[in-house]
């Protein structure tokens, strides 16, 4: 077969580092990272309790959700950990993905491009794999940086993109497993020498340049790049001193107590939260309470995190009335769910339905104060929810009505 010149010629690819063993190691490391990102991603979908009320963002019944379970309230930092892992590991996986793709780039120019129907099918599957990998990383990265250059709904697209990515990854791992096993087995004969011997897939060079970087050096660079990305971002999840060095984390650096949505952004004004504000309780014995009446109820103080789906979290000291106490006040039965509604006139998270477990947990508060002072307006004055281990957007701000019901 006559090959076109340039990258289609095997001698074009000269790096002495490429070879099936290198690709296998990079692929195995990337797989670990991708499993963490995928599992935490689907767990986050479950944390939104999409089976309750109008919580679902991806239409219920069309979301294939593999993890259907009641998201726990224990430990309180569970969602902060989940999203910290999802975002930080996702960001740090980018250099690993780039190295992995660099190691297999000669395969893109295999000649003839298609030898059999199976190879055509495999190449199409690889487009789905690489395309969805970049799609998930790119949409995730720009979303946590609050830049939305696309026209689709991020949550729905990132969720369905994950389904393509995970399916394509499973197929890819199954197809490539024998190659990886062989590469690890043959490693004993390599004894660390460069380059790897020529292989049927054409990854190892047939005309290698002298090395400018050892294989160990390449792994050090990949690891250094991953650590650098983690170092400048992880503080927004972990907090403490690391927050100071999280200089490229969207919500790291300066602010210890970030705001997710300001009052102005969702059109909540000072007039709406003045003396006329009442909390409406709906249940067997409906009630309406002014803020002073709420402050006269038994108050409890809890240290709980606000944990954003975007990966940042912050633990503060909240004081308020237990949601379970408010349920009892209006005669709700044990095991009731609670529909929480906000004053905010628009926005996806102006309402949320909390599970029976979240309502019953003693640490779930209708918070009135934070760190000893009244809530600032941007943090939800006159009253906001704070729920252990729940996604931040479920800790509804500017609460106006609580409806307790069995389903």
């Amino acid at each position: 077969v006559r090959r076109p010149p340039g990258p289609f010629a095997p001698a074009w690819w000269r790096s002495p580092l490429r070879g099936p063993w290198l690709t296998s190691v990079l692929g195995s490391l990337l797989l670990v990272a991708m499993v963490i990102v995928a599992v935490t991603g689907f767990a986050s979908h479950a944390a939104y309790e999409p089976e309750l009320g109008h919580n679902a963002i991806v239409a219920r019944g069309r979301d294939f959700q593999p993890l259907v379970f009641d998201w726990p309230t224990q430990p309180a930092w569970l969602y902060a950990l989940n999203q910290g892992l999802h975002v930080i590991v996702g960001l740090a996986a980018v250099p690993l993905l780039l190295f992995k793709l660099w190691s297999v780039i000669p395969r893109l120019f295999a000649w003839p491009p298609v030898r059999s129907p199976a190879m055509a099918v495999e190449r199409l599957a690889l487009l789905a794999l690489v395309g969805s990998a970049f799609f998930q990383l790119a949409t995730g990265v720009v979303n946590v940086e609050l830049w939305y250059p696309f026209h689709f709904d991020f949550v729905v697209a990132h969720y369905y993109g994950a389904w393509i990515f995970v399916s394509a990854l499973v197929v890819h791992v199954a197809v490539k497993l024998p190659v990886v096993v062989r590469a690890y087995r043959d490693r004993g004969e390599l004894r660390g020498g460069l380059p790897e011997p020529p292989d049927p897939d054409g990854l190892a060079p047939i005309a290698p340049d002298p090395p400018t970087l050892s294989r160990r050096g390449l792994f050090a660079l990949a690891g250094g790049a991953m650590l650098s990305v983690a170092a400048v971002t992880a503080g927004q999840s972990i907090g403490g001193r690391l927050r100071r060095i999280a200089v490229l984390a969207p919500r790291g650096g300066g602010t210890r107590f970030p705001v997710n949505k300001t009052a102005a952004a969702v059109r909540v004004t000072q007039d709406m939260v003045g003396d006329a504000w009442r909390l409406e309780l709906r249940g067997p014995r409906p009630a309406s309470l002014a803020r002073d009446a709420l402050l006269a109820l038994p108050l409890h103080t809890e240290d709980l995190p606000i944990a954003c789906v975007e990966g940042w979290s912050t633990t503060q000291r909240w004081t308020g009335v237990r949601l379970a106490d408010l349920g009892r006040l209006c005669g709700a039965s044990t095991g009731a769910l609670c529909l929480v509604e906000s004053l905010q006139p628009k926005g996806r998270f102006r309402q949320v339905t909390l599970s029976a477990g979240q309502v019953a947990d003693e640490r779930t508060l209708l918070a009135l104060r934070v760190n000893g002072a009244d809530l600032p307006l941007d943090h939800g004055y006159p009253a906001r929810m704070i729920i252990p281990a729940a996604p931040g957007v479920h800790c509804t701000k500017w609460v106006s009505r609580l409806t307790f019901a069995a389903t």
Partner: protein
Amino acid sequence: MIRRAYGASTWHLLGHLVLFGVVAYVLVQMVGRRGGVNFVVWLTAGAVLHDAVLLPAYAAVDAVLRRAFGPAVNWVRVPLAISGLLALLFFPLILANGDANFVRAAGHHAGGGFARAWLLISLGLLCGAALTAAGARRWPRRSR
């Protein structure tokens, strides 16, 4: 039989058919929505841009560096690679692309802090590498 006509096992074919089924389902769910076509563009653009633009671009830069710095190339290549990666991941913050959303959501500007941080990190990496290289030349390690 299948192996001869298709070129791989039946499982290979079945696995890929399931995958294409998932892709088709997702496309059906997405294409009718707002931004459905945009979704398809984004889904394929990353792979194309990586293979056709990003990889050739950094390979060309690396070739220039190798020619310019010879055996000392890693002292330049490593800091530039990390600085470039941070730019790739954080350019929307560095260029304040989402500033309006920052003001709406967080109540403050994205600010020049990100651009300054990236510049300082990049300068720090390059200077650190240059100093280490100079030190290594001044006090060479004894070979054992």
